């Protein structure tokens, strides 16, 4: 039913020196899909996400965006990145800019929107994540949860086709995790394509269309949340979930 393919990861390899982190990853992402990637620390989840956004250069294989290789020499990387947003584990809000400027700067410099338009759009998004009252604050004056909500608004402001989330709640205090997850849930329901690397199993189960389990540099298993969480086929998936879910 969701037929249009946005991203295709084909036989992706990534090594840091002799250390092979990603071993032959294949992944298709359709338009409007919410895809969660779970797995143990060090399994290569974040590296996969960073390769998709070209923050890391793949050492093998290919990534197609609308059937076009993003690795070819003539591919416009900056344009691609404007269409594929990213939310980081450590927020990475621009420390020299206030909240409003953080959400506006990408629009005015990259998309060349005029400042008034960019400001209206930014205010609308900040309103939605509940950060409108803080427009004049500098990032260092905000809590982690507040910063992450601004970071989500900043990524959204570019009107991206795909949003990547790299463990967006891992650096947060427990009481702030919910505010960020709520924001993301709302976003998931708007029909935006999202790839989420997360350790929040309940969240992954609730919002995802597809859940992928990564283990030791390969995609061990993927399926609907129901398939993965209720009837995992692979022994590694079962063991991981057992360990993870028993903690709660």
């Amino acid at each position, binding site marked *: 039913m969701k037929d249009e393919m946005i991203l295709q990861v084909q036989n992706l390899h990534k090594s840091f020196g002799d250390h092979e982190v990603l071993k032959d990853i294949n992944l298709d992402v359709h338009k409007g899909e919410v895809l969660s990637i779970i797995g143990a620390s060090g399994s290569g989840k974040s590296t996969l996400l960073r390769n998709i*956004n070209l*923050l890391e250069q793949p050492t093998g294989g290919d990534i197609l965006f609308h059937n076009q290789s993003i690795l070819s*020499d003539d591919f416009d990387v*900056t*344009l*691609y*990145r*404007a*269409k594929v*947003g*990213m939310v*980081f584990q*450590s*927020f*990475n*809000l*621009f*420390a*020299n*800019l206030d909240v*409003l400027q953080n959400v506006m*700067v*990408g629009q005015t*410099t*990259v998309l060349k929107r005029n400042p008034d338009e960019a400001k209206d759009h930014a*205010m609308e998004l900040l309103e939605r994540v509940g950060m*409108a*009252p*803080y*427009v*004049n*604050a*500098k990032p260092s*004056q*905000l809590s982690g949860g507040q910063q992450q909500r601004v*970071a989500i608004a*900043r*990524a959204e402001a*570019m009107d991206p086709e795909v949003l990547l989330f790299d463990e967006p709640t891992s650096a947060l205090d427990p009481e702030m995790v919910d505010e960020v997850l709520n924001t993301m849930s709302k976003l998931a329901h708007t029909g935006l394509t999202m790839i989420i690397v997360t350790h929040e199993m309940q969240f992954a189960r609730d919002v995802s269309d597809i859940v992928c389990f990564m283990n030791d540099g390969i995609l061990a298993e993927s399926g609907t949340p129901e398939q993965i969480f209720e009837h995992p086929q692979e022994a590694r998936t079962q063991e991981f979930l057992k360990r993870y879910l028993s903690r709660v």
Partner: protein
Amino acid sequence: MSHLFRKFWAVFAVLGLGFGLAGMLATPTQAASKDNGEFKVGMEAGYAPFNWTQNDSSNGAVKIQGSSEYANGYDVQIAKRIAKALGKTPVVVKTDWDGLPPALTSGKIDAIIAGMSPTPERRKTIDFTNTYYVSNMTIVVRKDGKYANATSLKDFKGAKITGQLSTSDYDAISQIKGVIKEPAMNNFPAMRAAIESGTIDGYASEVPEGSSAEAANPNLKMIHFAKGQGFKTNPDESDLAIGVRKGYEYKAKINEVLAGISQKERTQIMNEAVANQPSTGNTGNWFVSLMQQYGGMLLRGVGMTILLAVVGTLVGFLIGLFVGIIRTIPRPRSTGKRGLLRLFDWLLAVYIEVFRGTPMIVQAAVLYYGSAQALHLSIDRTAAALIIVSINTGAYISEIIRGGITSVDAGQFEAANALGMTHFQMMRKVILPQAVRNSLPAVTNEFIVNIKDTSVLSVISVSELFFSGETIAGQNFQFFHTYLVISGIYLIMTFTISRAFRLIEKHMDGPKNYNVMNNQMQVETPRIGGAPRKDAE
């Protein structure tokens, strides 16, 4: 490996530059100066009674090029006679002692009339006319000191004696048995100050210089050696002559003029010079009289120092930003662009290594004298000074900015990249504002260093504050007082700068008592406890 290679090439480039410079200085080229009816004479204008600086044109003084001051003294009077015979206008180019030979060979001046003796070393690069003053050496000591009553060189056994750098006077000190030959000093004001402070016991000098020191400063005394007990000098090497370029067309004419000035007339000129040299008006408060007499000169010195430091730091800062942006460009995908970027990177690395690795005084001499000698380019000395300070500071600030960029969190780069910003957009909007804030304390440092270190530019005769101070001390003989005032002025300038930058830093950090809830979308500040607005529901 490639890193080592890059270092190697940088060193190679510096060496190349050095050899090139040596080659330029060794081959005196033909006159770069145009014959425009001027006879340009180089002198220190700080070696009374031979030459000194004064504020007005009294007693037949000659205007100093590019300044509102005048030069006078024995040398100036001789220069006027020569210029008259050549049918030219005499112009004095005030130049540091070390700057005189390069100024001559590069055509900035036509002759050196500065109490210089024609030593064999000097004869290698420049030519000399016949003697214009017969040398007679002496030693200047403290009047109340242990050596005040000396009459023979033997009396100076164990004394600490110095002389001016690269002069025959200094070489002659070796004739004293058992003397402690102190390192040579740069100019006479410094030596007189050294005697007064007791760091040396005396300095070797010419008799006229000694008598004027004695006349102007009651604490000093010139030794009168008993016959045959003084310095033995070789007239060819130690008598004073006029330095000219090799093959100078008017050399014979100058010798003719000199032959026409009798010994009696020479003595007469010298006596007048000793009588006319500026003396200290020791009436009332020394500070008030110093300011009255030299306030203008000091102010102009301060103006030049500030101009050099401000322009140098500002342009250097812009260079630093530019280099910072270029050197952090990520590796482009296409091979051609990558090669180009690498070449550019390498050039910038060479620039930084060369300008950080050589003294500014040398850079200034190379640019100012070198360009005239090798390329026949005549650069205005203030322009040359501004260029040198700017690119020198640029080399340092480039590295400061690089450090500032490196210290910005990697997440800031990633977030900017992830938004689709180009390298330049990222640098302008996100990285440089933070990098500059991080670098500001170090940039302030550079600014302060520039205020002080531009004093080395006196080598190309830029009259900044220190050069003015040297001139004043050379005239009024109040070394301690003059330098005290100079250091006070320096301190005021540097203190003001460090405070101003502290304020800028504070401003950049933003207010500490922020109100995060203050919504700038509100058109008006809500009134608390005030009357309700008319249009309120």
